């Protein structure tokens, strides 16, 4: 046991080992990535936490896994301790509240010198914050998509149609994802259901812009945040991460288009 560690033990101070720290940083980074944090931000945040405890961290991030080494620097260039871990990234929905809170936590660790135990408690508290009320969420998303239809010059009838279509589509999305159906199949079915409802406008000749209603009815499914994240990652030089996020988002957009195409085929709509 090195001299300094023995001295700290004698003084009754808890000694932080790389083994404990790496568990925390590993969980922290994979949660932040799953919540839709940019790759650069994850990298910076992990370094910030490690430095607060006088450690260094090296991070390699892959689309589904991350590898990290926690190093205790020592005089002379040979590190006193080094631990490496590989962990899988739990992919989840983007969660702004979580990203913002985790970022704040990393600064609190750096500025207020929180102990690891306290940091872990705060981390658990952040992860335990519940999601928005599903009924309220459905209503908000429906309003948003109706407003979006308005931005594409849809008239009030079209906006009403889009509101109903989104209400149905988003309800389906919540239920199917809750039941654990694959996300791509879910997106296909939701796009199909939403556009089918909106296609009533074309069949019954409701309002002046039924085409707009049908085109806008599936837009609530577009994965906007992953798309922005992908472009920013590519610009930051994390090309692997960026391209993988871009391809994941594009896959979902293809599923949406296929759902819409099925409706068009069934209803005999030629163009939007």
């Amino acid at each position, binding site marked *: 046991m090195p001299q300094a560690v023995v001295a700290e033990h004698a003084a009754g101070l808890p000694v932080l080992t790389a083994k404990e720290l790496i568990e925390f940083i590993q969980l922290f980074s994979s949660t932040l990535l799953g919540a839709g944090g940019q790759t650069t931000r994850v990298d910076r945040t992990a370094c910030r936490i490690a430095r607060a405890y006088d450690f260094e961290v090296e991070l390699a991030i892959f689309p589904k896994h991350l590898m990290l080494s926690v190093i205790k620097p020592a005089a002379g260039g040979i590190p006193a301790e080094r631990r490496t871990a590989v962990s899988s990234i739990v992919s989840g929905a983007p969660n702004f*509240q979580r990203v913002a809170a985790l970022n704040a936590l990393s600064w609190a660790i750096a500025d207020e010198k929180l102990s690891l135990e306290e940091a872990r408690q705060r981390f658990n508290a952040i992860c335990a914050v519940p999601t928005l009320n599903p009924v309220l969420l459905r209503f908000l998303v429906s309003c948003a998509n109706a407003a979006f239809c308005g*931005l594409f010059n849809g008239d009030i009838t079209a906006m009403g149609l889009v509101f109903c279509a989104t209400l149905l589509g988003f309800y389906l999305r919540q239920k199917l994802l809750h039941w654990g159906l694959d996300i791509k199949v879910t997106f296909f079915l939701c796009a199909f259901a939403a556009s089918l409802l909106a296609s009533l406008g074309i069949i019954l000749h409701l309002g002046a812009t039924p085409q707009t209603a049908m085109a806008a009815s599936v837009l609530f499914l577009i994965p906007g945040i992953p798309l922005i994240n992908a472009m920013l990652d590519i610009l930051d030089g994390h090309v692997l991460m960026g391209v993988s996020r871009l391809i994941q988002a594009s896959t979902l957009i293809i599923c949406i*288009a296929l759902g819409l195409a099925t409706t068009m085929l069934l209803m005999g709509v030629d163009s939007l």
Partner: protein
Amino acid sequence: MIILECLTDAGLAAVAAVGFAAISRPTKRIAVMAGLLAAFGHMSRFLLLQAHVGIASASLWAGLIISFCSMPIARKCHTPAEMFVFPALLPMIPGMFAYKAILATLQFLNTAGTPEGQKVLASFVYNGLTAFFIMCALAIGAILPLLLFHREAPLGRALQRFGGSNNTPL
């Protein structure tokens, strides 16, 4: 008349931004600020489009405005600037162009070799490229001010010296 259209556009964009952001569980402050930023950004894009500026350049400009305005807000709220910028950009994501490009591809498979096929192919190229360029423009617009005025960037340091002790980390 144009003022009324402008305000309608801003209002609709704000509602769209807040609603779409709700999926990603924002805090109340993020939602309100993102709504305001989206209204402002989308309104400026609308005005530029009225002045016959291309949609990609207009989006770049809107992204820049949103990102610039988000920086003081982020500093004040101690929240990363991206948290305000991302939801504000959501109403401008070229979702419709993207899936129209894919629909055109599907149609092209059935119409290849006919004059109709050429029209569909042109539609695919137009929609796909537009979606790609709008996406790039939004990303560049969002990140450029953050890069230029980051705490460690030369411009950011100069601004900090100029602004005194206003150095809350982002």
